[in-house]
Structures are given as C-alpha cells and as structure tokens.
C-alpha cells in the first residue's frame, strides 16, 4: 500500500482488423472481420515507491506510452492489475486525475489562445484547489520556473522552452503526489534542458513528488533518475540503476594514453602520419590516434584495466593515462539493436521453464 505505483503482470492487447479495399471488401470486413492480435504490453510488473524519480526508456513502439496510458486510466489493461496511489486508474479515473500531474513534451495541456496566466488561473477551478493554496503554489512556481517574463503572453506565441515551463507549472498547481513526464526536454537547447532538470530535481527532493519520466535523452536519465526501466517489445527488460547498465552491457571501455615525445618517436607510423601500436593484447584495439595521445578500446571481460596499464607502461614511456566510460546512449543503442536484454530475458525464461 505504501508504493505509489504498483503494476502486476500488466498486459494490453489490441485487436487490429484487417481492412479490405473496395466496397465489397468493406462489407466483407463487417461480416467476417479478419482480426490479428497485437500485444503492446506483456506481463509487465513494476513498483514505484513514493518520492522516487524513475526513468522509462525504450525504442519507439516499445509499449511505453501504452503503459503510461494504463497507469493514468486512459486505457484499460487486458490482463493484470494496477493501482496508483491506492486507486484503480480506470474505475477511479477522476479521483486519480486529482492527484496526478501530466506533461506531454509534444502537446500542451494549456489553452492555446489565452495568456499563460489565464490557463493557470482556470486550473484552480478545474482542480478545485483552495484559493490560498493555489495562490501560494502559483507564486512559488512562477519564481522557480521564471515565468514572469512571459506569463501574459498567449500560449501559442511561446517558445518551446517557455511552453514547457508553463506546462510544468500547470501540472503542479494542484499539488499532485505523482508527476508523469513524456519527453519533457525534447527539442530544447542545452540551457533550457538544464533548467528543467534542476527544477525536477528540486521538486522531487524538496517536495517528495514521485516522478515517472519517459525520455530518449540519456542525460535526463543519468542526471535525474535513481532507477531506470527499459521496455522493449512490450516487456520490461531491465529495472535498475544506470551504473549497473553500464557495467553489464557497457561493452568496451576506452583507455587514453598520452605518450612522451621519446616514446612517440620510437613508434611506427601509418600513412596518415599517426602513430600505430602493434601487437596489442587480445581484446584490445586502437580506436584513434592524435599526437600525443592514443585511444585504446578494450572489452571489459578481455583484460582488466590495471593489467592493460601495466602492459603499456612496461613497453612505452607514458605521460598520462585516463579512462573513458562508454556513452550510455551507445550502450542503450547496443541493447536495442543487439536485442541483448531480450536474449537474456528469453534465456532466463528458458532456465525457469526448461
């Protein structure tokens, strides 16, 4: 009961009728519909505690929005159970809506033709927020999100970043305990992104708002989320921290070695005029060279980092050595493309059901 979001074995299937062309085809489709079943979400369980900030990532069509829609009561699950803030999302939709805030990156919840302040004032009545609380929240959000410079401008004239800040304020005016964000930093510049992230961190840390964040931006995940869920093909494939993802699926790490001038002079050179290291240990390859540095990529499993350093140090005089972790972007992409988790998932299934 303490968990804010509890979903058990959620499933959602859609029946897609095949449309036949032509007038006769249309009639036939009514009489004898050919239906195929598409499973958008399959056996998905998750548990989010109060005050957590969780990231939700997955390729397009993975089932992320379908899952969110089931959590907000827009869609009814075909199987499984879900409870949010102790309520059933579809049966107690309006009650739940009172305690939840939603921000869509692509579509605003504000009224398009009116100044931002009008939308924010109207929301007081829509959500039945007592006057003083609304005024206090509005004041606080205006300050936190720096809304004053454009609060009288019609929403349709706002820039994307301004509109996003407006939407965030709108979503929080009624003190929701849970906030869903769908691609909140999409299309924003670096400064705007940083501002939004800082804001989210603040409301999560200081007000204990539980946040579920769908995004394609890995920096959002790394900077904000304690936990990340990876969803693909309607299944939850991973539920853990970002660091763990890197460790388990990071693939290659990179060692950057800076060579001393004398060591550089002793090295063979390629046609491009860059130094070339030969006879590297197994699992190590030269990725790039730019005098006086050489980048070496090595598999995590192939050779421990300190051994590689020792190997290099024994042969060459080095000025400096640094390590570079793989970009989480690349890691996630690998996971999608190589279906790594899916394979693991299937393997674990086979272990459980031989």
């Amino acid at each position, binding site marked *: 009961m303490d968990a804010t979001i509890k979903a058990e074995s959620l499933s959602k299937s*859609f029946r897609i009728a095949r449309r036949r062309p032509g007038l006769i085809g249309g009639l036939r489709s009514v009489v004898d519909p050919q239906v195929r079943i598409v499973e958008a979400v399959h056996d998905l369980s998750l548990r989010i505690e109060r005050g957590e900030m969780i990231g939700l990532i997955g390729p397009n069509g993975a089932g992320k929005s379908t899952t969110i829609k089931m959590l907000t009561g*827009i869609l009814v699950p075909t199987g499984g159970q879900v409870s949010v803030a102790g309520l059933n999302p579809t049966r107690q939709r309006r009650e739940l809506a009172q305690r939840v805030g939603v921000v869509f990156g692509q579509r605003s919840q504000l*009224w398009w033709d009116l100044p931002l302040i009008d939308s924010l004032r109207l929301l007081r009545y829509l959500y039945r927020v007592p006057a003083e609380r609304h005024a206090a929240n509005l004041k606080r959000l205006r300050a936190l999100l720096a809304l004053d410079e454009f609060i009288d401008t019609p929403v349709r004239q706002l820039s994307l970043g301004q509109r996003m800040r407006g939407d965030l304020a709108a979503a929080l005016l009624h003190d929701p305990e849970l906030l869903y964000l769908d691609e909140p930093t999409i299309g924003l510049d670096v400064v705007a992104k940083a501002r939004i992230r800082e804001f989210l961190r603040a409301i999560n840390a200081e007000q204990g708002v539980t946040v579920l964040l769908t995004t394609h931006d890995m920096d959002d995940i790394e900077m904000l989320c304690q936990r990340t869920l990876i969803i693909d093909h309607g299944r939850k494939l991973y539920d853990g921290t970002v660091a763990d993802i890197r460790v388990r699926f990071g693939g290659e790490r990179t060692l950057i070695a800076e060579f001393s001038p004398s060591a550089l002079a002793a090295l063979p050179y390629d046609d491009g005029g860059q130094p070339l290291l030969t006879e590297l240990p197994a699992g190590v390859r030269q990725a790039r060279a730019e005098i006086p540095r050489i980048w070496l990529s090595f598999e995590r499993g192939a050779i421990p980092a300190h051994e590689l350093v020792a190997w290099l140090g024994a042969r060459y005089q080095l000025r400096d050595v640094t390590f570079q972790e793989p970009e989480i972007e690349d890691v996630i992409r690998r996971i999608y493309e190589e279906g790594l988790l899916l394979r693991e998932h299937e393997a674990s299934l086979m272990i459980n059901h031989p």
Partner: protein
Amino acid sequence: MNAIMSDLRLYRRLILMQVRAQLQYKINVVIDILGYLAVTILEFLSMLIYFVPFPTMFGWRIGEVAMLAAVASFSFGLAELFGAGIDVFDETIRRGDFDRVLLRPVGALFLVASSEFRLRRLGRLTEGILAFIVSLVLLHGIKWTPLKLLVLSISVMSGALIFMSILLMGATMCFWTVQTTELTNILFYGGREMLSYPITIYHQVLQRILLFVIPLAFGAYLPTCYLLDRALPLGLPGWVVFLAPAAALAFASIAVRLWSFGVRRYQSTGS
C-alpha cells in the same frame, strides 16, 4: 446540490474564457455573427416567398409557419451554441486530443461539451428571435397567457436538448469511426429543416418518428400548436404538449448512456 453549483460555475468559467479569447478579435467576431445572421435571415425570408402564390400550407397561414420556423430555429440555435464541443468531436478524436480530456478530474462529457464555444453561433439565435417577431407581426399578435409562455420556454429548451442529444449520438459514433459525421449532419440540419414546416405535411411514418422516436416535434411543432390554439397531430390530446421535458430527458438519457459505452470502448481499444 453543492456539486452541481460548482459544476455550473466551472462551466461558466470555461465558457467565459473562450469568449474572452475570441473577443480579442472583436471585428472578426462581429463579422462572423453578422454573416451567419444574414445567411439564416435570408433563408427564413426565402421561405416566406412560398406564400405569395400559395395562401396556405396545409391550412397554415404565413404567420403561423413563420412562427414555427422561428421556434425551430431558436431551439436549434441553442443546441448549436451550447453543443459546439460535441459537434466538432470528430476533430477532437482525429487530433488525438481526447486523451487530454481523460486526464482531467472532471467528467469527459462535461469537458467536451464546454469546449469549442463559438460566439459566431449567436447568429442563428438572433435570427430565431427576429423571425419570431416577424411572425407576431404577420399574425397581428396572438393571445398570450402565462402558461403559453411557460410551455414555449420549456419546450424550446427541451428541443435544444434533443438536438444536442442527436449531436451526442453522432459524437459517440466517432469512437468507432470518424466517417459518419455526414449522417449526424443529416439528422441535425435535416431535422431543423423538417421542423420548420408543419409536420402534418409529412408521411404518417415520418410524423410518428418525429414524435416517438426522435421527439423533435416536442421542441417546435407541439408548442407552436399550443400557442396558436391548434389541434395536435395524430389526434393526440392537448396535454401531450406538457410532456416535452419528459421526452427530451428520456431521449437524452439514452444518448448519455451510449456515450458512456463509447468512452469505455475507447478505453479498451485506445482508438
């Protein structure tokens, strides 16, 4: 009671907000309203031309038919004005905006019905009033009683409710397919046209449909008969005219139930 009052206040605020947005462009609003008024007045006046070669239509004189058309127009105009959000629901579904409606802590129908308020639609309401005045002039006045005034007011609102229910059923269809908007238009605009003439000119089957299936006749024909001290169609007893609100509420409750069914379907298929 408290809940209804606060709902009404919320409705008023939502409407006022849209009115304010449109009034930012005062000239455009005025031109829109006048344009619509002109179109509807021209249509009304052209109907009066019938009475140049023909002194009566099925025993109805020009002033009487004018009054009928005016009442039908006004009732329809109310539905057009307050049911605008339901009218354009096919666009809402097509744009995928219904999800946003479901995310609010208010009833979906309430929110849909209070959106898309367009001042332009005041044009037809104005025409209804003007046409009514013209009809009174043509009739050299009628014998008013307080009861007649009451019957007229309540019947007109009942008629508006029935028109809005037609729109609601059309909107509900959009949960299955957005291709049926033309059918709704036929019932909506065609219904108004049919009501502009005495329903006794139509085939018996159509008369029964307008009385017992889609009870539009209760919104225009029956109260006009009452105002003009005329007999009701199909030999119905005079007190039937007082059943207008009952007929409207019955029809509306069917429409609302179908709508709820449609929303549930949307939630299971996601459209």
